[in-house]
């Protein structure tokens, strides 16, 4: 033993690198042999985490009488080595796809410190997860961000849009953006408004299960996304994700229609107010609705944006004071109202004051489906008289993103309102079918 029984060995043990094998004799004289695994945030104090030789993981409390000795590093696993860091093959085939990575579950691994997942940063790591991309030889990986999507901000939408234009200019046939799913809908809407004259598809894709799981949906989603990105009929921003719980059918959603409707299911992404544009099913892309055709180009980013905008969800008990404070400093406020687009009558004074000083206030419905309609109830008519503009069947999130875009394009409230009301990326539905929209 390296230490006499009276010495506290915690400091030494807790500093050992993961993978280091040790023989640990606990305070009760029990012997444990195994490799150090990283401590996690929820572990107790003075507990060292071991992967035992049996393969099981346990935590062993280190007492004042514990002893240990080093057994050397873990032997090389008998399994396949970690994939080498080979660069993606440059293909002679002109029809290459750019894969822009931004972080998120599709490019994350388990973090043993937190027990959660953490985004990977490098192309090499992406290829470890999806070696078939290398074999395809038609995909170039371009790391853009390494962040979870809840950490992305509107300025990142512009950065991403510029990167997309750049790879199209370099000759990409289509672009796939690997993105965290939490705010993927926001980014999809933002790119729909920002990108103009796209010569090919821009396909956002994510994963609801991290790629360190054999059951991850990341690989099959990515494969579907790459196939859709090759489709010569498509020149707009779409989201491709599982259409159901199975791994063989994927929905193609318009970027402005789509919303994450479940926290964990593979088919969390749903088009609202109608069916998705199409599906990728058993190896084939099918469109069920008219899609925007590719443009002759050149593609460009139609910035700028102005983030002095807010999205406010009305609820019973929201005081007008709280709402007014929330809207302070904003040039535009999107309300997610109840039903056809209502808020309590006590909200009217701050809304009138805001519109009077030039703030654009727009109404959407928190029902997430159906049009807002100001003429049916008196509240709606009052809101309309107060200067609130009604945004049809736009999702509240899409309306917020459009507000950020529109505020960047006009200084006068009337101009901003016109931009908001005018269809730009196929975001409004003219008709609503009685069919289930999923």
């Amino acid at each position: 033993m390296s230490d006499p029984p009276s010495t506290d060995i915690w400091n030494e043990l807790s500093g050992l690198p993961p993978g280091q094998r040790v023989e640990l004799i606990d305070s009760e004289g029990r012997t444990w042999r195994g490799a150090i695994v990283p401590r996690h945030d929820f572990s107790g104090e003075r507990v060292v985490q071991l992967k035992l030789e049996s393969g099981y993981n346990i935590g062993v409390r280190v007492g004042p009488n514990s002893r240990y000795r080093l057994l050397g590093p873990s032997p090389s696993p008998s399994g396949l080595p970690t994939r080498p860091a080979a660069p993606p093959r440059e293909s002679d085939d002109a029809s290459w796809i750019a894969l822009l990575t931004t972080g998120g579950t599709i490019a994350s691994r388990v973090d043993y410190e937190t027990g959660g997942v953490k985004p990977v940063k490098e192309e090499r790591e992406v290829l470890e997860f999806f070696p078939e991309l290398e074999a395809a030889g038609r995909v170039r990986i371009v790391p853009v961000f390494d962040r979870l999507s809840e950490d992305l901000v509107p300025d990142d939408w512009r950065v991403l849009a510029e990167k997309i234009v750049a790879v199209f200019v370099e000759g990409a046939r289509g672009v796939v953006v690997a993105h965290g799913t939490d705010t993927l809908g926001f980014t999809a809407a933002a790119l729909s408004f920002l990108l103009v004259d796209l010569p090919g598809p821009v396909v956002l894709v994510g994963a609801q299960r991290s790629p360190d799981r054999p059951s991850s949906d990341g690989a099959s989603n990515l494969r579907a996304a790459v196939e859709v990105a090759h489709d010569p009929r498509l020149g707009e921003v779409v989201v491709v994700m599982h259409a159901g719980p199975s791994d063989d059918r994927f929905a193609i959603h318009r970027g402005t229609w789509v919303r994450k409707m479940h926290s964990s299911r593979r088919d969390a992404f749903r088009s609202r107010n109608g069916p998705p544009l199409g599906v990728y099913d058993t190896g084939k892309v099918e469109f069920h609705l008219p899609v925007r055709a590719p443009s002759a180009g050149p593609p460009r980013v139609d910035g700028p944006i102005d983030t002095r905008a807010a999205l406010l969800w009305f609820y019973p008990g929201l005081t007008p004071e709280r709402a007014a404070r929330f809207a302070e400093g904003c040039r535009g406020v999107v309300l997610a109202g109840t039903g056809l687009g209502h808020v309590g009558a006590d909200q009217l004074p701050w809304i009138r004051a805001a519109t009077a000083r030039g703030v654009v206030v727009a109404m959407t419905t928190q029902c997430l489906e159906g049009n807002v309609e100001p003429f049916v109830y008196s509240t709606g008519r009052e809101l309309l008289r107060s200067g609130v503009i009604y945004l049809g069947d736009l999702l509240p999130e899409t309306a917020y993103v459009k507000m950020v875009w529109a505020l960047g394009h006009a200084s006068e409230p009337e101009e901003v309102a016109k931009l908001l009301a005018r269809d730009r990326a196929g975001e409004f539905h003219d008709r609503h079918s009685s069919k289930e929209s999923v």
Partner: protein
Amino acid sequence: MKAGLEVHQQLAVGKLFCACPTELTETVSDAFTRSLRAAGGENRNVDIAAAQQASRGLVYRYEAGPSSCLVEMDEEPPHPLNEAALDTALTLALLIGAHPVDEIQVMRKIVVDGSNTTGFQRTALVAVDGRLDVGGRSYTVPTICLE
């Protein structure tokens, strides 16, 4: 020669990581298909047996019924470990003089033969070094796990 037995006992306390009952049923309310990949485990290395199995490119069809929910479908993260199950395992451990570990950890055991929708089973080592005396003979119970 040394021989050992691995004894599995289903505990009548509901499932380990969700609130579903454990009753077996023939009723099928949903079906779906999945493929499994040989993902790198904790040490980022791909197990050779898992890689071999995954390379067969099999598609697995699962049927869900009244005794399953999104957790079994791998559509929802596992709930916290069933406390009644843990209590039962610890009670058994103490009854046979086993030593509970200081901190129980649930680990992944990669199994890509389709028997788990996740591609791994979740196992926790609860206690070690038990002893069971039956019919005048003493049997060692080296490990007690929950899975």
